[in-house]
């Protein structure tokens, strides 16, 4: 195989797939390097046509995995640790990382072609003008070098391709985009939404914006993608291609051009750098199966290996010019590690009068966008939080498996309809802290010889204050929404809030205008290395409160367009 390419894309997840599609469609010979195995679309690893009784061990992973310390992080996540989706998550015993004992960090990864695009939450939310201005306004972190207006056309570009089912809500804090018909709210969710609208001007309960197709376009149909049929088995892989993933959308689009080469089981060890030309020359990889090393050459390198994965590779890319990691003259590489965090979970019974029900398994929740961009009178913190919420179905009496009760009496109640239960999970914006950081472990290496990543990050006083306010706010909103039996659980100050739990890790190679304080410029191009780009979560200078994948994709498409123009002009 020819090992020279126009562009090398490291990673094949949400952003890697986008970089590959954009470059291939612009006529560039593109190599995608994926550390994990090949996973075929609609292949045997997809479990989306298995009924509950057909799942291996009825969904329960073999106990010896836990006993032998496998999948520690995923087991802590709970609901993802099942045999229908386990194949799409990395085992942290095989791919270890470390953290200070008192600051556990949850790093959930997907080491296969498609990465976490196979298992992502599919909530696609634009950032607002205020989100991009936040760092500059309150002085925390590195000011964003781009604005909402810079990204808006690229949001549209991405939304049209991936398919976003959403309602045009007309909110300044959550701009509308190119939408397909939205999923509908349940009777109870509509009830709460209407009640909140009567009480508040700034707090809204909306239907989530989902990357599940509800009205396929010609382009989507040509790629073999179909309408979502509300199975909500997305994390198992979707044979209909109804939710956006690398396998269902960007990879087939890139493959159609004839410009794409994909290598799997190839772990990028480092970005190679020429001290004389001051350019990245390619990547060095370790064969995951044989441990053999080889190199690929490229005119431009796009890092799309996930926020922390990219940071790990960049820190390990040492040279005479960059003894502390490539493109790290600022010393900012590995710093400002961030993640959404939750500290409040609340629920309540919705007091509706009519005896209504819901049918089907909607693949998206409802959402209360951040309403605290501007510091309000009652706030002793900066930034804000939103809530991921749901009352998709009526509750029903569960079997007494974990409480007293056997025999006919207990059995006859099982499945009886109960009230609609509304649940809300806070998603808070952590401030960008320089000392929340990731470094290479000084001694420990993984089985392929890569230094493991040590992640030292925590929430601080501002986030703790947010938790307290979020608890007050959600209780008030549940009352205003028409709920009873309200339960609000807030994490006390004494208890650690693990970052990474929402699988929204960001930062480590932040964008900024100043080369002395940031790693990337406004085009996601390394200040120090003109042909090196980072467009995954590592580039983020703040987290806002919205799920970040849509922004990653838009940033990637924008940066790829910029890099393509440089390549065409022979400037890279």
């Amino acid at each position, binding site marked *: 195989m020819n090992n020279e390419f126009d562009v090398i894309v490291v990673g094949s997840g949400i952003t890697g797939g986008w970089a590959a599609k954009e470059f291939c469609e612009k006529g560039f010979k593109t190599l995608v390097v994926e550390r994990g195995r090949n996973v075929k679309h609609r292949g045997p690893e997809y479990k989306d*046509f298995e*009924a*509950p*009784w057909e*799942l291996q*061990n*009825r*969904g*329960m992973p*073999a*106990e*010896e995995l836990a*006993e032998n310390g496998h999948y520690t992080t995923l087991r802590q996540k709970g609901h993802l640790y099942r045999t229908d989706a386990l194949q799409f998550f990395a085992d942290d015993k095989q791919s270890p990382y470390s953290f200070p004992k008192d600051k556990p960090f949850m790093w959930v990864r997907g080491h296969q072609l498609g990465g976490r695009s196979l298992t992502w939450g599919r909530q696609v939310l634009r950032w607002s003008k205020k989100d991009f201005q936040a760092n500059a306004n309150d002085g925390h972190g590195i000011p964003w070098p781009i604005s909402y207006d810079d990204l808006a056309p690229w949001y549209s570009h991405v939304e049209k391709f991936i398919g976003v089912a959403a309602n045009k809500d007309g909110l300044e804090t959550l701009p509308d985009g190119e939408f397909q018909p939205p*999923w*509908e*709210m*349940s*009777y109870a*969710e*509509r009830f709460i939404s209407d009640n909140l609208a009567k009480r508040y001007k700034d707090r809204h309960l909306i239907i989530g914006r989902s990357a599940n197709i509800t009205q396929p376009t010609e382009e989507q149909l040509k790629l073999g993608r179909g309408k979502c*049929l*509300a*199975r909500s088995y997305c994390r198992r892989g979707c044979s209909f291609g109804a939710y956006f993933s690398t396998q269902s959308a960007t990879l087939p689009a890139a493959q159609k051009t004839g410009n794409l080469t994909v290598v799997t089981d190839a772990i990028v060890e480092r970005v190679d750098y020429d001290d004389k030309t001051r350019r990245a020359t390619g990547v060095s990889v370790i064969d995951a199966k044989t441990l053999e090393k080889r190199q690929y050459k490229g005119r431009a390198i796009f890092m799309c290996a996930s926020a922390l994965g990219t940071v790990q590779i960049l820190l390990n890319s040492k040279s005479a010019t960059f003894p502390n990691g490539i493109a790290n003259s600022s010393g900012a590489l590995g710093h400002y590690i961030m993640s959404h965090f939750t500290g409040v979970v609340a629920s309540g019974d919705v007091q509706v009068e009519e*005896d*209504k*029900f*819901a*049918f*089907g*398994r*909607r693949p998206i929740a409802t959402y209360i966008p951040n309403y605290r961009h501007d510091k309000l009178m009652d706030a002793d913190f900066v930034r804000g939080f939103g809530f991921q919420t749901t009352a*998709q179905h009526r509750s029903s009496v569960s*079997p*007494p*498996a*974990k*409480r*007293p*009760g*056997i*025999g*006919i009496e207990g*059995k*006859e109640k*099982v499945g009886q309809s109960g009230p609609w239960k509304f649940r809300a999970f806070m998603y808070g914006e952590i401030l960008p802290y320089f000392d929340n950081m990731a470094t290479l472990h000084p001694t420990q290496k993984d089985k392929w010889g890569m230094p493991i990543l040590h992640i030292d990050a925590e929430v601080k006083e501002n986030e703790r204050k947010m938790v307290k306010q979020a608890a007050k706010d959600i209780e008030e909103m549940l009352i205003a929404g028409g709920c009873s039996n309200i339960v609000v659980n807030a994490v006390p100050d004494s208890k650690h809030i693990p970052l990474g739990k929402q699988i929204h890790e960001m930062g480590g190679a932040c964008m900024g205008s100043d080369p002395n304080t940031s790693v990337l410029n406004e085009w996601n191009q390394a200040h120090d290395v003109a042909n090196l780009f980072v467009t995954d979560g590592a580039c983020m200078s703040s987290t806002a409160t919205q799920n970040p994948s849509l922004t990653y994709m838009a940033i990637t498409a924008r940066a790829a367009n910029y890099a393509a123009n440089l390549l065409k002009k022979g400037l890279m």
Partner: protein
Amino acid sequence: MLYVVSTAVIPFELKSSLKLTVFKSDASFFNAEQMTLAHDIADIMIPKTHTPGASDSHAAQILDELMVSWASLNTQQQMLSFLSEFKDRARDLHNNDYLLMTRERRLAYLVEIDQNAFEDTTSPFLIAYKRFKELIFHLHYTSKEANPEFILVPGGYKGDVTEDELQAIYKRQYL
């Protein structure tokens, strides 16, 4: 997996009152007596009514298979110990072999254990009972028999339907 079931070992005069399914052959993991016990406990926990019970969903037989494909050595040992002590306790408390007790007495014995299990969190036997119960319930309520209305491909989502509309959708098996 097929099991040879026989009541031949039970005295004739007790057959009608026992309502017991006896396994004659060893299963994949449990021996015949353990299988008989496990099956009977499951059947009493989730009896057949107008809806299928644990016998219909073969919860105990599937548990036996999971002991091989899923369970760790600790869990295997825990289940074996539980069944053994379950039988011994019955003999100590009721001066009778559990399998020779009437269905009513077996139910009463199990109800007592069930109530104690959620009050005493230290007894290894009761902890094992809760584990067994949890597994049987999981296997039954994830079975085809217990989920006659399950639809793999709903076709869409409607969040505001009446019960009549809902039943009509279930009848046609698609939105």
